[in-house]
């Protein structure tokens, strides 16, 4: 029992932090900077605690007498918890500068963000579909509100409305799928479907397939796969920069946390069917996402479009899982980490600049940026290179593993398409680099703004490069191999089939 409490403590700290922040938001004297610090403090506490638990907890059900097997604690969920916490910490730190320049933020903003993180952490631990749904909704509803947080902006409100309506619509499919599963199996625990089919091999299972497909629809909606992508660009653009960053990097990881668990356990018997569906979705997502990305003039919209393409790469790896690529699932985790680093960095720079007087939104606004802010331009270049999958950045390795798993599972066409799309992505990523470097500007060169935001961006840039070239040669510094190994361990921890 004590052990269980200890394991649940990080979750508790986060939700406690959310409540504390909500309470103190009644006092108007507290400055935004303090809110930010308090939120980061709670998150860091939870992060450190979680870090100590990363290794020694292997597949334990939390409060089993009370909750049965609803919550599971394994390396997989712990790793994802760490990613969410890190994502939230980095998001808050990078936007320190941004918050100070905007007057519509207050304590509730941070409270909601922490609630959302709490929902995501629940999601990664959820071992039961209804729990998963509730967690997903906790996370989502917080994000819905955060998207529309700038009440004065029509765009922001419109984005929130779009997101809520479509999100609600998609969520119905999840609950519908859950209901169908309950109707067939008589249980909603993850793993029960697996054992149900194992025990009743002759039963008609079409209903189950339909149910799983509905659940998949919700997941595909959340990660913005074509044809469920329509919300992505509008919402990303309408949302405030910190929230766009949070959605693109952190929230997407959370969706994969539950989907990977589901897919690796419950979908096992239907891999041949769902691999085909995923292949088709991956193809249209890659192509559609690229089309969306190349036709955007606004940088935020371009990054939104490109995030669809990145979802497409992840779908390639997902379909490879079913076709026997051993390394596909760790590749997904690794890809998520790499995308997190580069996307947070890129959005971070955007939000950092957005805080300045002169807004930069379109590609053209970045003409000659390298002369004005050489260091930021250089870091932006690093992030663009990583997003495009250029060698010596972490993005290259991540793409490499994905394509490797695709080839290993015999999906040569998908691998080829992925590589082609990566070439196309050079167009919109390098366009920014070219504009930054090859055009003159009238602006005076500015000094590098030392501060929390810029330091964290710098750290992200370093990690992006380190992840691309880093090996274990330098002692005490984990190289890429360590990351990959961790991802593998995490996947192995859920592959332990229950019963």
């Amino acid at each position, binding site marked *: 029992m004590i052990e269980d409490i200890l394991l649940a403590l990080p979750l508790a700290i986060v939700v406690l932090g959310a409540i504390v922040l909500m309470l103190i938001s009644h006092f108007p004297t507290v400055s935004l900077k303090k809110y930010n610090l308090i939120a980061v403090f709670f998150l860091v506490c939870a992060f450190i605690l979680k870090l100590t638990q990363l290794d020694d907890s292997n597949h334990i059900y939390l409060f089993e007498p009370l909750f049965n097997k609803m919550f599971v604690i394994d390396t997989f969920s712990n790793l994802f918890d760490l990613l969410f916490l890190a994502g939230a910490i980095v998001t808050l730190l990078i936007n320190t500068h941004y918050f100070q320049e905007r007057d519509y933020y207050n304590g509730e903003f941070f409270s909601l963000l922490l609630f959302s993180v709490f929902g995501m952490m629940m999601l990664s631990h959820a071992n039961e579909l209804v729990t998963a749904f509730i967690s997903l909704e906790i996370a989502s509803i917080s994000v819905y509100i955060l998207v529309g947080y700038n009440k004065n902006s029509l765009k922001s409100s419109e984005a929130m409305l779009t997101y809520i*309506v*479509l999100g609600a*619509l*998609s969520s119905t499919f999840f609950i519908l799928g859950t209901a169908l599963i309950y109707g067939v199996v008589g249980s909603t625990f993850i793993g029960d479907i697996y054992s149900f089919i194992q025990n009743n091999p002759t039963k008609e299972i079409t209903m189950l397939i339909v149910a799983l497909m509905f659940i998949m629809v919700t997941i595909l909606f959340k990660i913005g796969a074509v*044809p469920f992508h*329509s919300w992505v660009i509008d919402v990303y653009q309408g949302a405030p920069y910190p929230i766009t960053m949070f959605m693109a990097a952190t929230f997407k990881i959370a969706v994969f946390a539950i989907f990977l668990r589901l897919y690796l356990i419950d979908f096992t018997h239907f891999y041949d069917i769902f691999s*085909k*569906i995923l292949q088709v979705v991956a193809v249209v997502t890659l192509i559609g996402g690229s089309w969306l990305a*190349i036709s955007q003039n606004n940088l935020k919209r371009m990054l939104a479009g490109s995030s669809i393409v990145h979802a497409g790469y992840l779908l390639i790896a997902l379909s490879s899982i079913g076709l026997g690529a051993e390394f596909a699932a760790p590749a997904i985790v690794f890809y998520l980490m790499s995308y997190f680093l580069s996307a947070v960095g890129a959005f971070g720079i955007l939000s950092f600049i957005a805080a300045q007087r002169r807004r930069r939104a379109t590609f053209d606004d970045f003409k000659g940026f390298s002369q004005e802010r050489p260091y930021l331009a250089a870091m932006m270049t690093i992030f663009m290179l990583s997003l495009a999958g250029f060698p010596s950045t972490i993005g290259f390795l991540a793409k490499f593993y994905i394509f490797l798993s695709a080839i290993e599972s015999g999906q040569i066409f998908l691998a080829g398409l992925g590589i082609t799309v990566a070439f196309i992505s050079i167009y919109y990523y390098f366009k920014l680099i070219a504009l930054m470097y090859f055009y003159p500007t009238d602006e005076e060169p500015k000094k590098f703004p030392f501060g929390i935001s810029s330091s964290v961006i710098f750290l992200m840039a370093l990690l992006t490069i380190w992840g691309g070239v880093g090996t274990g040669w330098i002692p005490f510094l984990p190289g890429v191999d360590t990351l990959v190994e961790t991802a593998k361990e995490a996947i192995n921890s859920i592959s332990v089939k229950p019963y």
Partner: protein
Amino acid sequence: MSTLLLLVVFLPFLSALVLGLTYLFDTHKRVNEKFYTILGVAVPILVTILSFVIVLDLMSHSSTTVVTAVAFNWLSIDSFHIDLAFVADPLSAVMISFITFIGTLIHIYAAAYMSSDQGFGKFFSYFNLFLGSMLLLVLASNPIIMFIGWELVGLVSYLLIGFYNKEYENVTAANKAFIVNRVGDFGFIIGLGILFVAMGDNGFTFADIKENIYAIDNHTLTLVGIFLFIGAMGKSAQIPLYVWLPDAMAGPTPVSALIHAATMVTAGVYMVARFSFLYNEIPQVGEFIAIIGVSSALFAAIIASYQSDIKKILAYSTMSQLGYMFVAVGLGAYSAGIFHVFTHAFFKALLFMGAGAVIIALHHEQNIFKMGSLKKALPLVYITMFIATLAISGIPPFAGFFSKDAILNHAFMSEHYTIWVLGVITAFLTAFYMFRMLFIVFVADMKNNHIEHKALSKALTYPLIVLAIGATFAGFLGANEAYGGSDLFKSFISLNDINYSISHSTEYMLGFVNVLVSLLGVTLAYKYFRTSPQEPLPNKRVRTLIINKFYVDELYDRLFVQNLRSLSNFFNKTVDEKLIDGFINNVVHLNLYVASKFTSLQNGKIQHYSIYLLSGVSMMSLLLIYILEVR
């Protein structure tokens, strides 16, 4: 001894590095010229001493002793090793001794010639690098290391020819030298490649190749021999790859001296001698080499007879003398060939340095018809140049006579009478054009000679004296029995010569013929150019042809350069722009068009978005039904 050998190669490279770095970082020109001079000249002197020590050491032992030195293992693949190793056998020892000796004299001369030049430090860095590269080439224990030296020599010659790179002509000349050399090098590396494959697992040092040469069939060897010789054609300026040599005169005169006397052009002859065991197996290729050699010799001599630029005359004379050397090595008289390389180094260095002194004295005037009666103004230069001219013309007892005589005798004895006749004609022409130059520059009374003379420093003139002594007496080292010598040179370097016994009377007869034709040439030159020579005008068809160097440059330009250029243009303008870019652009435009249509679906209306979502679900359902039914 092996440490000394390593030093011989590495010292010039090291000093080149130090000089180069000093020059690079000395952006404010604070470092004195003296620093460059001292380091740049001291190293060649040191290397010369070391080389002499090595030669003396080898002389004191039996002829089969060699000094070897392994610097490090350069490449190691499985059981196959390539060491950066050096071998000093009599052949390479003789080569390095005169390369370093003459190289040193040229360095001293250059210190005076180049003084107060902007790129003084750079020049000496290149110079030392040139020397080092040549030593690497000569001492290499295997063909691959030799090839590195071979390429380095080509590179440095490019840098030095284009030393005054502000002028377009110099850059063109440097490019020409580099590109023509690349053509030869390409042949060289093909030859090495074939040889490498043929050798299999038997190692790839010269010693290994020599031991296993009998295992390789004759056809392969023929191929290897021809391709290696193509490399030699490029480096040693033989027909058809000679075109770079006259243009290479664009470099400063010490560079010409170094290229023509001590380094670079002799590399080809040396390489053939180094592979003598291989060429002995394929006498047919040897004959081919000899024919190329004698044609080059005659061809260059004809052109030289009508040139009016002092350096160009010397350039063509080098090509001509190189032709003799190839006749020798082609017909199996390797030691005679190397002996001619040896003697030639003395008098050719002397000629170039003398020419340089004249050019300096006349404020960079190179046209001999604008000189004249310099005898009184530059007596020392006149005397030394006169000795050198006698030597190159083959007048006994000067050095050139013995080496040239040995070659022509060999051609006669091996019953290659055509080659012999052509060689003798060339000897006649050589005497003619060399004395023509000498008379016009120093003796003839020119009407238009009003140029003031500049005083020459000692560093410019003293090396001339040393070389003049060499040009006079070096020949006796290789004088054979008939002339009272004992074939010292030949017995020391002990190459796999093909020997013919020859009676003394025949030898005297042949020697007499040589001297006679040379004297004939001298007389002819005396008759026409002693008093008031006229610059040859292109007023007759044949003369026009010769003055314009048989239009070979123009022919190459038409044949290769223009065709290549138009082919490049075709690829650039048509294939690249229209075909490849056109295709890509079309794909891009198509994609952008589709993308804009696809993006226009994003109209911001939630109702529409919901419809997309639901139709997505429907499509997925249809897909599912399809999959399930198929199953």
